[in-house]
């Protein structure tokens, strides 16, 4: 069976997801030793600006504008509004050239080889349900359930899937949830109209489990460590990352936390890009 990782890189005028994808592809190759392909609407930019040979395949999709705007914080005191181009994740099942695919957000920074074991585990579909806030001082309720009276939260940040009829049905269902988002967000009591893949994947998991909790979606190895966009990635060297995490109840103040050998979802993409730029300039 063929296996590999897939990244999605669609720039929005504010954030350079292509740059992030190139950076992450190198780390995936280093730590997981699997081929990496990218789905992008910026193939020319990728080929003209970066070493695109880090990718096994470049899967080109048309450039589209979206109206799904959201706020991206850069630490607790600065933010920008930008389009949130997140409407293609449900198509990855069809677009992936691999039988076994590890789908990752470009801001999930791989720093160990734990995901190698995904390909050995028997579950055909795995996501993170349990997560861990690196700051550990905030209310994590929003990542436990998709709303106060609703269903379990699954992270769509990292998805492992093995092609099979059931997994195809799951991805088709995610697409349906996305297409009928205004209906499903009301049924599942989601207040915001902003489409989020985490929510769509969680709703699909709930439906596929017979409208209940269940084992249709397996658990990825390890925990989903994350920092939010109000935290700052300050430095990175090899498998170590130094974060400044938001100090609880002290707006604009931070605490340093060093991670070593732990993969972390870095939601502050601006700080991630600064660190990537520093690495490139070294």
């Amino acid at each position, binding site marked *: 069976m063929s296996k590999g990782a897939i990244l999605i890189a669609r720039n929005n005028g504010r954030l350079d997801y292509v740059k992030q994808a190139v950076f992450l592809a190198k780390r995936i190759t280093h730590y997981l030793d699997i081929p990496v392909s990218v789905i992008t609407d910026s193939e020319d930019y990728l080929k003209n600006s970066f070493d695109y040979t880090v990718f096994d395949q470049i899967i080109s999709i048309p450039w589209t504008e979206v109206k799904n705007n959201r706020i991206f914080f850069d630490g607790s005191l600065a933010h920008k509004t930008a389009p949130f181009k997140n409407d293609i994740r449900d198509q990855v099942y069809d677009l992936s050239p691999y039988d076994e695919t590890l789908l990752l957000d470009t801001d999930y920074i791989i720093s160990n080889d734990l995901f190698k*074991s995904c390909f050995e*585990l028997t579950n055909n579909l795995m996501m993170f349900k349990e997560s861990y806030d690196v700051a550990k001082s905030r209310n994590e309720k929003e990542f436990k359930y998709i709303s106060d009276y609703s269903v379990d939260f699954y992270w769509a940040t990292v998805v492992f899937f093995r092609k099979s009829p059931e997994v195809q049905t799951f991805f088709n269902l995610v697409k349906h949830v996305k297409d009928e988002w205004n209906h499903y967000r009301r049924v599942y009591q989601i207040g915001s109209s902003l489409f989020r893949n985490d929510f769509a994947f969680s709703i699909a998991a709930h439906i596929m489990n017979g409208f209940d909790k269940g084992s249709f979606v397996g*658990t990825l*190895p390890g*925990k989903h460590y994350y920092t939010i966009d109000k935290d700052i990635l300050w430095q990175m060297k090899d498998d170590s990352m130094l974060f400044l995490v938001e100090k609880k109840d002290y707006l604009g103040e931070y*605490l340093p936390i*060093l991670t070593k050998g732990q993969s972390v979802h870095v939601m502050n993409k601006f700080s991630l890009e600064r660190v990537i730029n520093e690495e490139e300039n070294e």
Partner: protein
Amino acid sequence: MDERLEKALDFSNYMITLNNQKRMLKEKYYESLLYFSNGCQFTVTRELITFVGFLVDKGNTEDIVLTDDNELPAKIADLETFYEDILDVYFTASNEYNSSYEELKKNRKTELLVDYE
């Protein structure tokens, strides 16, 4: 600022950072205790080691069913090898945890706690 308070606040910042780093070390340790066999995931706990060791001592070493982290059954063909492997995972992870912890404890300044050079 009163010097007594200033010193206490400095120490307070040091302790917050120290506790955060201890917490992250412990998290890394938990991840290091994962062992994969037969398509299943096992967290190597003292309970698992003791139970598997007991089975091996009693001569139950072939085609033994254990439940994994997801409470799914896994038939282990060779339990002696499994036992050796989980012991290796346990000692490797624990020794690394210990050396990282000792290193952390040596640092008496906040900036050294998060210095990765």
